[in-house]
C-alpha cells in the first residue's frame, strides 16, 4: 500500500526553494486531473529528493524559451499513448525499417509536430514521466561522472531538444560539444535552448546530420558521445553504433538509451527484449560499463503496457 501524500502541502513546502517547479506542478494538478496524475503522484511520493531540483532546472530552461510545458506535455503524451495503444492491439509500430522517409516527412520535417509540441513535450517528460526522470538520474549518476577529461570534446547524434548537451556543457566548462540532428527544427530549438540558458556560442557547434550515413569524424576523435532515443528511430541502428564506437577514443564513453516494446509517433525499430539491445551493442564494438532497465511496471504494477526503457554507458572495444 503506497503512503498517502498531501499534494497542496508538498507544493507549498517547495515553493520558496523551487518556485518555477512549484508553480508548474500546481498548475498541472489544477488542469490535468486524470492524465499522468498517478505518475506525478508517484514522483512526488517516491522521487521527491531528485524530482524537485531537476524539475526546477528543466522548467526554468523551458520558461527561458517562452514555453508552455503543460500544453506541450499533454499533447506529446497523448500522441504517444495513442501510438502505444495501437501497438498493444496490433503488435506493430507506426513505421517499419522501409518507411524512414515517411517518419521524416510526418515528424522530423513537420513544424506542426516538432514546433507545436514534440520537442518541448519530450523535454518536459524528463520531469513529468517518472520513467524519464529515472533515465535522467542514470545519465547524471553514471555518464556525467564518467567524463573525466577536463578539456574534452564530444558529440551528440540526434540531440532533439538539446537538454543532454546543456547538462554536459554546464557541468564541464572546458568541454566542447558537436551536435548533429536530421531535423532543422531540432537544430533551431536546441540552439536556442543552449543560448537562452547561458551556454556561450563558442562552446558548441550544432549542424544537420544523418546518423544513417557514415559519420564525417576521425576515428578516436571523441572523448564522449550521447546517442539517446535514436536507435528505435533509424533503420540501421547497429551500423550507427559501430560508427560511434569508431569515433570514440579508447577511454571514451557513450550514453545510449532506447525503448523496448514501445511505440511512438516516429519509432520504427522494434526491440522485443533487453537481450536484443545488449547483443547489438556488443556486435557494434561497445562494452557496457553500466546499465539500467526500467519497465513501466516499476511505476504501476497494474499496467498492461509492456514498455521498457533502458540506458547504457559504454566504452569502445578497440
Amino acid at each position: 500500500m503506497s503512503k498517502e501524500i498531501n499534494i497542496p502541502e508538498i507544493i507549498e513546502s517547495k515553493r520558496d526553494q523551487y518556485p518555477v517547479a512549484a508553480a508548474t506542478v500546481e498548475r498541472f494538478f489544477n488542469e490535468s486531473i486524470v492524465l499522468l496524475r498517478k505518475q506525478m503522484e508517484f514522483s512526488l511520493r517516491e522521487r521527491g529528493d531528485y524530482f524537485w531540483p531537476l524539475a526546477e532546472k528543466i522548467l526554468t530552461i523551458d520558461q527561458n524559451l517562452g514555453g508552455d510545458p503543460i500544453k506541450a506535455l499533454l499533447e506529446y503524451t497523448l500522441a504517444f499513448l495513442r501510438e502505444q495503444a495501437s501497438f498493444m492491439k496490433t503488435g506493430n509500430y507506426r513505421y517499419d525499417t522501409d518507411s524512414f522517409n515517411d517518419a521524416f516527412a510526418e515528424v522530423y520535417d513537420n513544424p506542426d509536430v516538432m514546433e507545436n509540441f514534440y520537442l518541448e513535450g519530450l523535454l518536459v517528460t524528463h520531469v513529468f514521466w517518472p520513467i524519464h526522470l529515472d533515465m535522467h538520474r542514470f545519465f547524471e549518476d553514471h555518464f556525467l561522472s564518467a567524463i573525466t577529461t577536463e578539456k574534452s570534446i564530444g558529440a551528440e547524434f540526434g540531440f532533439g531538444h538539446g537538454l543532454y548537451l546543456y547538462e554536459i556543457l554546464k557541468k564541464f566548462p572546458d568541454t566542447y560539444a558537436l551536435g548533429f540532428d536530421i531535423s532543422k527544427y531540432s537544430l533551431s530549438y536546441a540552439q536556442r535552448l543552449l543560448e537562452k540558458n547561458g551556454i556561450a556560442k563558442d562552446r558548441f557547434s550544432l549542424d544537420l546530420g544523418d546518423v544513417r550515413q557514415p559519420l564525417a569524424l576521425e576515428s578516436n576523435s571523441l572523448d564522449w558521445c550521447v546517442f539517446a532515443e535514436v536507435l528505435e528511430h533509424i533503420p540501421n541502428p547497429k551500423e550507427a553504433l559501430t560508427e560511434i564506437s569508431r569515433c570514440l577514443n579508447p577511454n571514451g564513453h557513450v550514453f545510449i538509451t532506447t525503448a523496448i516494446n514501445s511505440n511512438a509517433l516516429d519509432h520504427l525499430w522494434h526491440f522485443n527484449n533487453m537481450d536484443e539491445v545488449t547483443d547489438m551493442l556488443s556486435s557494434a564494438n561497445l562494452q557496457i560499463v553500466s546499465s539500467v532497465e526500467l519497465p513501466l511496471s516499476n511505476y504501476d504494477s497494474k499496467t498492461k503496457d509492456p514498455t521498457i526503457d533502458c540506458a547504457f554507458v559504454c566504452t569502445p572495444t578497440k
Partner: protein
Amino acid sequence: MTDITQSLQDVFREVFDDEEIVITDDMTSENIEEWDSMMHINLIFACEQKFGLKFALAEIASLRNVGELKAIITSKSTT
C-alpha cells in the same frame, strides 16, 4: 438509466474487462484501480468509436469524473 449512461457503462465494462462495473456520475480514476493513463486513452478511443465523436485535447486531459464524460458526450451528440 438513459441511453447514453447505458452505452457508457457498456464501454467501461468492455475497456476494463469487468462486467460488474456500475458507473455513477461521481466515479473517478480513484475508484477503478486499473484506470491509468493508458486505460484513459483506451476509454476515450472506445467512447469516440461508440458515440461517433472526437474529443479535444483539453477534454481528454482534464476529465474529472464520469459525469463530466457524460456531459461532453451529450453536448457533442446534440450539436
